[in-house]
């Protein structure tokens, strides 16, 4: 019990220490950071490239074909230092993705968190909370 409490405190302290760097290549002005959307769907691609990684996924609709969404993350380097890997998401993964949407209304945004349907631990972007 005491060990669990200590571990929880360590984890909380570690999360508090996580850096929240700003984007290097461009600002986030085109995203509405006052809003957070969540979209459940199936991962199509996890693009592990500079300047920013991105996740593409398809969201089922009641009628018609699934809608394709895409969100940008920080750079692979910053993700690596936050515990991500190039295969942290794979095509076919069932996920719920939380993100700030683009102000333009397009099906894009800036990533906040992914929750896996299979129970894997959530992953967050160290850049945008």
């Amino acid at each position, binding site marked *: 019990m005491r060990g669990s409490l200590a571990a929880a405190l360590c984890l909380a302290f570690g999360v508090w220490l996580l*850096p*929240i*760097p*700003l*984007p*290097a*290549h*461009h*600002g*986030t*002005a*085109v*995203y509405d950071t006052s809003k957070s959307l969540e979209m459940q769907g199936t991962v*199509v*691609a996890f*693009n592990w*490239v*500079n*300047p*920013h990684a*991105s996740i*593409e996924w398809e969201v089922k609709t009641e009628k018609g074909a699934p809608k*394709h*969404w*895409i969100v*940008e993350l920080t*750079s*692979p*380097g910053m993700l*690596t*230092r936050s515990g991500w890997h190039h295969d942290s998401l794979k095509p076919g993964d069932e996920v719920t993705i939380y993100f700030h949407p*683009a102000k*333009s*209304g*397009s*099906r*894009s*945004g800036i990533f906040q968190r992914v929750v896996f349907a299979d129970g894997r631990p959530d992953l967050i972007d160290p850049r945008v909370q």
Partner: protein
Amino acid sequence: MRSRIWSCIVVSGGLMAFSCVVFAQTDTKTAAKEIYSGKHHEGTVQSHDLSGVWMASAGFESAARIHEAPNTFLQPWALAKLNAEPIYLRKDLPEGHAGGGTGLGVVRDISCSQISLTDFIIKQKPIEIVQTPQRIFMFFEYEHTYREIWIDGRELPKDPDPSYFGTSVGRWEGDTLVVESIGFNDKTLLDGMPHSDAIHLVERYRRPDLDTLELTLTADDYKAYTRPWTAGPVRLAWHPDWNLVEAFCIQDDNSNFKKLIVDPAVGQSKQPGSTKLPK
């Protein structure tokens, strides 16, 4: 009974020996990691040691902004060149890049051709400083490249070949590393300012505490300025547990990123499709 006692002694001795081996290995690994990361400072700031991984802290954009207004030191041709720059690249304007503005959707914003020594140091990309008796190396994660600063007492060369990062020598003045650089080409912006191949850049690095590196900048250029400009202090934070990774700027990747993310986000193209980035 006697055999039980002997068994206990033997087992205990074995455990102690095993523990010593384990602890010795752990201590060696820990010590090596601490020395590599700079943790051997043990909470104190060692003089003349800037080694480790650093990255500019939040707020670096405003901290790095040049103190003087451009029209107070730029010669007419240089001011005209600055004014020809797109607003989003201007660091001297609040609505420009250093003021939190965005160049999203504009081709040049994600171009790989924007090489600037000061940006490589100041922007929020990790750098690693490695010191030898003769040279200090700055390794940049961005572009996976480096610059070197000679600290063996040599003077700046008289007529160096022009280059993007210039030629640098350094010396310690008390607790401050003073780095002087010349030999830049005229293709870059240094802290957002145009310059000629005559620019003389001075960087001053000071480590006020274990976790902080402070940088101030001064530059003079008799061909482009009427008087020097100054900037800083910019603060960089120490990251003892970080390693640099490869982060080349590849124009094809940038163009794909613009097509997939930037253009839809700013409403300059249709909804993102299922286009895959090249593997």
